[in-house]
Structures are given as C-alpha cells and as structure tokens.
C-alpha cells in the first residue's frame, strides 16, 4: 500500500505531460493537467495512509 501510492504519483505526472503533447486546445489541456494532479493527490493520500505508524509501534 505504501509503495502503491508512490507508484501512482508518476502516472499523474505522465497524464499532465500527455495533455501537453496531445491537446493543443487550452481547455482540454487544462482539464487533463488537473486530472493528472488529482491522480497525484490520490497517490499521495494512499502513500500517507500506508506510512501511518501502528499506534504503539514507536514505543520502546
């Protein structure tokens, strides 16, 4: 789970880059870039969730 989120984040980046290459129109390009950012946010959320320590795990 912790690594899955980090793997999803580059997918969002490539979505944003694909928007640059594929869409000359600014509206569809912007929409795709925002979708890419949303995918990255999703990946970040999963990574954060996966890295949350088990309560008590930090106790000696």
């Amino acid at each position, binding site marked *: 789970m912790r690594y899955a989120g980090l793997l999803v984040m580059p997918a969002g980046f490539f979505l944003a880059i694909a928007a640059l290459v594929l869409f000359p129109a600014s509206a569809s390009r912007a929409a795709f*870039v925002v979708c890419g950012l949303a995918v990255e946010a999703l990946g970040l959320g999963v*990574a954060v969730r996966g890295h949350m320590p088990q309560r008590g795990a930090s106790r000696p």
Partner: protein
Amino acid sequence: MTPTAPAMTDAAFALALALLLLAPLAIAGVALINTGLGRSRSAVQALLGNLAIVAVAAIVFALVGATLAGTLPGAAGGAGCIFHLAGKPWNWIGASPFLLGGLAAAPAQSQLALLFEFLAVAFAALIPWGSGADRFRLTSGCAAAAVLAAIVFPLLAHWVWAGGWLSQLGVNFSLGAGFLDPGGAATAHVLGGLSALAVIWIAGPRKGKFPKEGLATALPGHNAIYILFGCFVSLVGWLAWNVAGALIWLHAPLAALPVTAVNTLLSASAALAATFAVTRIRFGKPDASLCANAWLAGLVASSACAALVTPGESLAVGFIAGIVTPLLVEVLELAVSIDDPSGAITVHAAGGLLGLFAAGLFASQTGQLLAQLIGIATLLGVVLPLVYLLFWLLNRVLAFRVDPDGERIGMDLHELGGGAYPEFVIHRDESYR
C-alpha cells in the same frame, strides 16, 4: 530563465553579487529555528549537522551536480541533452564542463546563477535534517544531502533555471513565460519539504511520540528564543534571496526590486498575523512556534511569487499561508501521525506549492497558471517518488535512524560525546514509561 538571457549591466551584477553574499542568512536562520525546535539533548548534533550538510551539499554539487545542472555553457555553447517528442525539444539534463570547468571564463550572469544554485542546493539539503531531529544519524544526514546535491537538485535546477523543459513551456507550448520560480520555491523549498516527508516516512516517528492510546505526545522545542531570533535572521536572507532571484532569473529592472522586497516582507507579515489570530482563537493564546512556522511559510511562498505579484496579492498569499500552516501542522500530527519536529512539510513543501500556484494565478500572461500546475505536477509526480526511492536505497546501506540507546540518551552524547548544555541534568523522560 532561458539560455538566451539579456546581458546584465555592471550595476545589476554588483547588486546581485552583494545580495547573494547576504542570502546565506536565510540558511542560518532556518538552521537556528530547526535547532530550537529540537530537544536540548540533540542541540549540538542538530546545528553541527546543519553545517556539515551545507558543506557536503556544496562539495558534491561542485563535483557532480553542477555538471548535470548545466548552468555553465558547455564546449559547444549549449549545456543540455535534448530529445524530441511530438515535434518539440525536451531539454532534460544539463551537460556543463566537469568540476566547474570554465567558470572564470563564463558570462557574469552564468557565474551568478551558479552561485545562486550553490546556495539553493545547500538550503534544499538542510530542510530534511530538521524533520529528522532527535533520531536522524549525522552520517546518514550527510549522505542524504549528497544524494540530493548529486542527482535530484541538479535535475530540477536544470529543468527550471538552466533552459530545461519546464522553463521552455512558454516557448514550446505557449504557456506564459514557462514555469517560473525566481526565488527557489520549487528547487529549494518544495524539494526540501518533500525530502523531509521521505525522511520522516523512512526514519519513523520519535520514540513515545504516538502512544498506544490517546493523542500524540507533545515534544516541544527546547529554545523559543532560537526559533524567534531565527525568524529575524531569515528575513534578511530572504529579502536578499528574492531580490537576487528576480535579478538573475527574471532579469528584472532595478526599479522593480523594491516591490519584490516589500512583497517578501508583506507575505511573511500577513502569514504571522493570520497564524497569531488562528492560534489565539483556537488555543486562547498565540503559539510562538506555530507563529514562527507561519513566518517562514510566508517567506517560502514569497520565494515563488514576490517578484511576480502586487503587494495586495502578496498579502493575500501570506494570509492564506498563515491560515493553512497551523491547521496543516495539526492535521499532519494528529490525523496522519507524521512526526515532523521542524514543520518542514507544512512550511517548505506546502508553502512553496502555494507560492508557485499563486504565481500562476495572479499572472497576466495567458497559460502561466497551467505552466505552474505542470511544474507542481512534476514536483509531486517525479521528485517525491524519486527522492523516496533514493533515500530508501540509501537507508539500506546506511541506516537513517539512530539505535534505541542513542535516542534514549540524546543525539549529542551518542554521536558527539558532549552536549550543548553540560550544566544541565538530563531528566527521565516521562514518555518512555
């Protein structure tokens, strides 16, 4: 931010050089703040670590990073490797002469740009050190700084400052003036903040921070005077940093520089005022360390946009940074159990991203917001996973976290054999029960 920059006048060159000689005060201020936010039994290790990291970052950047950053012109005039995709050139990595070759003969502006990058790489490498306070080993911290200075920072600096593909978004895709980051918000602060997140994830929380039951344990900083004085020191450095950045990367006229300085001050001031009010409302009294964090967050946000926005817009950016900072610190600690003693994720990563977004939002050029969004997507989608991967591999070779005994007696005694306050008696820590 293009390789074909207009020549700099002698007055602008002298001013930019003088400002860059003042800019390390920003680094000194943040080092002081990070030390104050840590515990007294790790104070010397924290401050020595800051100094060592600056040294390691500078050496490694000179040996390896500057070549990949591509700021100095190469033998053929240009300084970058380019591939073509969809009919557009994508300049993805620099290729300057090895070991700063040709530095003395390079154009004056390239020399200043390189000096700016030296300071930025030191700053970026320093930021995760504060987040690993009280458990991050000194050698591992230096090794992490070396990784950032050798690989990640040079890539990002090339993309943003040295004619790389992000800086060319305007030329190739008609997106405003391309990705703009005159003060190093992306290359130094967001990179540092995201690296801090990777360090925290890999090293884990401090012992006793998140007990089995109940809320997270408060582990307050040991010296509020260091923290608040560090804010004053930082302001001087930041003013110099942002004005120098406007001169070097935006080729701003001299008459435009006072506005950049005023915007820097306004952003920090508005952030402090907002956090002062938020903490006063939430806790009944203003919180000193959160106010210091907000001051820094305002400064970080100004790094991206102080040279690009009006004073009113700068106030708005600082105000938003000041509202977000205390709330995000609370969310990260209480909701997602991230133990970030220096608040680097909130201050540097979130503050930098806010500034970069604002630089696009308030821009007059068409497509500038989209260029800034693509830059943000690059930071989150490439830089964070790359830093995490490199740090994860490094942790396999050189463990980030100190052994339990070191954490119990404090990093000063464990790693250096002596503390900052030898007359103090180290008391038993109740959180270890």
